[in-house]
């Protein structure tokens, strides 16, 4: 299980632009650093972050080794209909994490 913190409004007016912020625990190991034994620590990063609202993609980004550990993402979306926003992170070593947020649109 991953440690994730999400900040999104529980309710929004129809048509309003809302901000969704998400923070996830992840080492974002670059693959360029030598470990204590002098050998390179294998790369272990999140490669992609996506957000869908009732199944339709509203935001996506690729991540690179230059992004710091425990990455924080903030993006905006238009509140069209009540439903579930699914945030999803995928990466090296089969990493998958998901967080669902329900937003009621009035």
């Amino acid at each position: 299980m991953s440690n994730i913190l999400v900040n999104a409004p529980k309710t929004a007016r129809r048509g309003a632009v809302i901000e969704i912020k998400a923070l996830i625990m992840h080492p974002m190991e670059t693959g360029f650093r030598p470990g204590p034994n002098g050998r390179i620590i294998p790369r272990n990063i999140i490669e992609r972050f996506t957000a869908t609202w009732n199944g339709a993609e509203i935001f996506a980004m690729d991540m690179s080794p230059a992004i710091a550990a425990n990455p924080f993402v903030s993006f905006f979306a238009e509140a069209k209909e009540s439903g579930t926003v699914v945030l999803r992170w995928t990466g090296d070593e089969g990493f998958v994490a998901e967080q669902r947020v329900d937003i009621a649109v009035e």
Partner: protein
Amino acid sequence: MTGRLLAIGLALVFAASYAAAQVGADKRRSGYQDMGEALQKMQDDDTANPGMLFVQLGGQLWNRAVGAADKSCADCHGAAAVSMKGVAARYPAIPGGSDRPVDLEGRINLCRTEQQKADRLPPENRDLLALTVYVAHQSRDLQIAPPYDPRLDAFRQEGAEIYRRRQGQLNLSCAICHDDNAGKKLAGIVIPEAHPTGYPIYRLEWQALGSLKRRLRNCLVGIRAEAWPLDAPEYVALELYLMQRARGLKLETPAVRP
């Protein structure tokens, strides 16, 4: 300069006297006040402060049974919001049946080994930091309140001596930077007053949560002194002195620092 020294002298007098610390003429500054606005906002927002990820993890570990005793912290201590409130504000302290002080990490490790019958967690281990930050977070916004235990006096005194002793190839003492030159800049960074208000901290330079001990080791390496081994009593002595010096300041755990 003289004014500055006087102010710090006064601050130390306040630190030494609980009654005086109450009067509100306190000039002491947490490292928080010396950070830029962006970092202060990051620390203040519980969904942007990366330290809160570790508080969340600590809460999960709090409820997980481990060791030969198959007990979780919660099995004995119940809700941390009740049982751990104010605890971090009075550590390091001397645990029952001992005559030497331990810091909060050390106290948690005692429960790991004696109560849970599990392995001792090594210094800076992620789970140890997460448990520590979870326990310390229960004291956020409470004033630092070191215990009045005369057995601690000698250790505090030792900490004060280390604090004022010149060491390392740069031949500097903690006091030269953190008392005499606090508020001035060192290579573009404001020198803070070194109050342990937010530990464990999320330090952006580390990209990780880290203990007060790790912070102290950074300062020792900075003056090119040889850092004591991780289990050395010198750290606990320094921590005791720093907590005494910060008596009355509010805990911020988990703090964000650059």
